[in-house]
């Protein structure tokens, strides 16, 4: 039998102080990012903020800085420009993205393209794709995303509360929020755009990261019955439970991690940030089920014991 790890007996609960500080800081950043998001502020993607994303290739080589200069003299001063390299992209391929600066209600695509034509008159640009989104559409998408976020979190909450006793429910909720907020916080720190796809990744994460916590809680419930007979204390019950499910947690995290890694590497520009959010989420979800969810239960039990059946 091949095993990644044998029987372990690591004292996870003992390391809770460090984990609490680490998670606390990340959650505050994440909470800040979340409030920004709900207010429609922050570094929003063009689908939420309105703006234009153009992909295409020039006939002749042009440098990113040169292109930036031409585009900004056409009025687009903060365009995001990258050259797309790789076997699939034709030579001199670029991705140019710029957000709406003033809500003038006009689409920017034609303006951006003509700025490029005027700036580089002898270098023909072949358009591969354009995504030109007016601020009005962005507002609608924001509203829809807000509902999707609130209702799915509420849905998960209700499910947890039906399935688990009160304390576990609360802690599972905290752990779920922790995972989503932490990734959001890291995105804020990295100054990554929050697009519709990133939001979808975060929501998927909320559902996915709960799995680790659920697996652990099921095991805690089971072990509690055994331990009560033997007279073991609560913290060691939890520690044993974590160690019991550790190999499962690591294996599933690794398999999921490997597929989303593949997505990050091979999935192309469109899915890049989506995959990045999922990768961070899988890692943080695994960490939180061990280092956040369980220690909170232990702390709670220590401060007001005997509530657990």
């Amino acid at each position, binding site marked *: 039998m091949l095993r990644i790890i044998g029987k372990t007996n690591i004292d996870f609960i003992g390391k809770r102080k460090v984990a609490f500080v680490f998670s606390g800081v990340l959650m505050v950043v994440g909470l800040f990012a979340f409030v920004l998001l709900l207010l429609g502020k922050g570094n929003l993607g063009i689908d939420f903020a309105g703006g234009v994303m153009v992909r295409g290739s020039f006939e002749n080589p042009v440098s990113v800085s040169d292109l930036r200069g031409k585009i900004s003299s056409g009025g687009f001063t903060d365009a995001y420009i990258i050259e797309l390299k790789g076997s699939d992209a034709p030579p001199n391929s670029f991705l140019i993205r710029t957000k709406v600066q003033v809500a003038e209600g006009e689409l920017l695509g034609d303006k951006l393209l003509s700025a490029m034509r005027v700036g580089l008159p002898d270098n023909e640009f072949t358009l591969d*794709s354009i995504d030109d*989104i007016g601020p009005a559409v962005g507002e609608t998408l924001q509203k829809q995303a807000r509902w*999707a976020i609130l209702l*799915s979190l509420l849905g998960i909450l209700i499910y947890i509360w039906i399935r688990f006793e009160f304390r576990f429910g609360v802690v599972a909720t905290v752990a779920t929020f922790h995972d989503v907020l932490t990734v959001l916080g890291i995105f804020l720190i990295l100054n990554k755009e929050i697009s519709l*796809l990133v939001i979808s990744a975060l929501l998927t994460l909320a559902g996915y990261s709960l799995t680790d916590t659920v697996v652990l809680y099921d095991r805690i419930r089971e072990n509690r019955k055994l331990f009560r007979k033997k007279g073991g204390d609560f913290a060691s019950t939890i520690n044993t439970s974590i160690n019991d499910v550790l190999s499962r947690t690591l294996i599933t995290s690794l*398999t999921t991690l490997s597929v989303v890694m593949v997505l990050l590497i*091979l999935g192309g520009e469109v899915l890049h940030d989506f995959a990045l959010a999922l990768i961070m989420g899988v890692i943080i979800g695994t960490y939180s089920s061990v280092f956040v969810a369980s220690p909170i239960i232990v702390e709670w039990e220590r401060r007001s014991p005997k509530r657990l059946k």
Partner: protein
Amino acid sequence: MRKSDAWRIILILSLCLISLYILYPTFKFYSMDIEERQALQADDPSSYIPLEKKALKLGLDLQGGMHIVLEVDKSNLTADEARDAPERALEIIRNRIDQWGVTEPLIQKQGEDRIVVELPGLEDPERARELIGSTALLEFRLLPDPEVTHRTVLVIDSVLAQIERGKGLKLTMEEEVAPSDTLIPAVKLFAEEDDLGFPLDEEETSRPFTMLLDPRQTSYAVLVEDVPLISRYLSLAEVKEIIPPGTEFTFSTRTYEIANRKFRDLFHIRKRTELSGKYLTDARPGFDQWQKPVVNFTLTKEGGRIFAALTGANIKKPLAIVLDSRVESAPTIQSKIRDRGQITMGGSATFDNARDLAVVLRAGALPAPVKVIQNSVVGATLGKDSINKGRTSVMVGALLVIFFMLIYYRLSGLVADLALFLNLFFLLASMAALNATLTMPGIAGIILIVGISVDANVLIFERIREELRTGKTVRASIEAGYKRALLTIVDSHVTIMITALFLFIFGTGPIKGFAVSLSLGTAISLFTAYVITKTIFDIRKGYKTLSI
């Protein structure tokens, strides 16, 4: 083998057969390349259409196409007109697209006054946007007397010169669009041909307006670069005051090129509409005697009466054909016209232009102008590129997981791999059966399903290993492993499905595709990873050892 086992096997096998049946058209359709598909479509449409319908649909991001969102501008409508304006606009747009002949367009209302149009596999998005977004309000209007027009532009000259001198106002817009030195040659280019030419010896500052104009038969040719400046001059309050009441200046719809310079025409026309497009019964593209593209139209009886009166009274005078407040052309009326007329196309119009105009005229004018508020176009090459990336990602991801399971859990891993394969197989089949659309985020969802699917098996197998370690028999360990893991597996699947559900409800386009593949795949995983693997374990009765 127990009786219930037999039933489960029959169920699983028949599901496989059904899926195979559902997916057959998809395999067949996508194994053909584009030329083969086009050939089949042309030769044998009766076998092509059902094949295309039954094949798994690809989203616009994968097959290429155009997605545009229009907003109906109801600001100039009465409350009564505004009520059904979006519906009427939608019908007219549908009509235009149907006549244009795009396969499988999607046209639907979104919210209060938005219309979403999706055109897969489109080749000329620019033209499509024009066709869909133009109001197509056709009007026939007369022109004021040429003398009046000539006097008016000269007065505009003096007014502008006065403003410039008197107030020291800077009239030019920005430096870049200011009239450049290239103007004089442009004017000289035609100077000899015209009888209404402006005196060229005057100082330029005294005629800031006419120096931009080159008089033609019924209009003034202007350089395209000067159009913004001229528009600005014409919108000045002082200038508006002296434009004769009931008339206006307006540009031509199209541009044309002479000696490598692009021109547009400026017309002085009356505001009164003599006849509008609502009297049209038909419009067809054609050519006139000089082989220039035209649109031949037919009018209703009443329209014919009005037109006959109008043309009869104005023979040898120009008649402006105005489309959405811009002049298409202003041909001279040669004789009295009743119910059959011809729209001369202006500028350097092509036959395609005439065909498009005929389409919009036949479908009728929109009840209100529409504004494009989203315009997304994906080229077919980029779509194909995305499909390749998605396919590679799914295959590499799945292979990684399959090898890992095989190495780590040996024969049991093989069982889980089979479940994973069936999961993806059933997922594609159910998507095809539900007429769902596969998008790039949808492919990402499938990749996630690869991870989620084995997750359940890992949970079960780890449990079985634990049970084996406590010294239970193989059979008892399997039973206990499956039984104990069940609730946990259900829990983890349900939470993912909850989020997928709300993403499906609130998501649009590609995101919906993600929600579809994620939720279907998760639900199927419950069946494949739990029921199917359990059935396989149950087929063999007397286990001595278990390869896990």
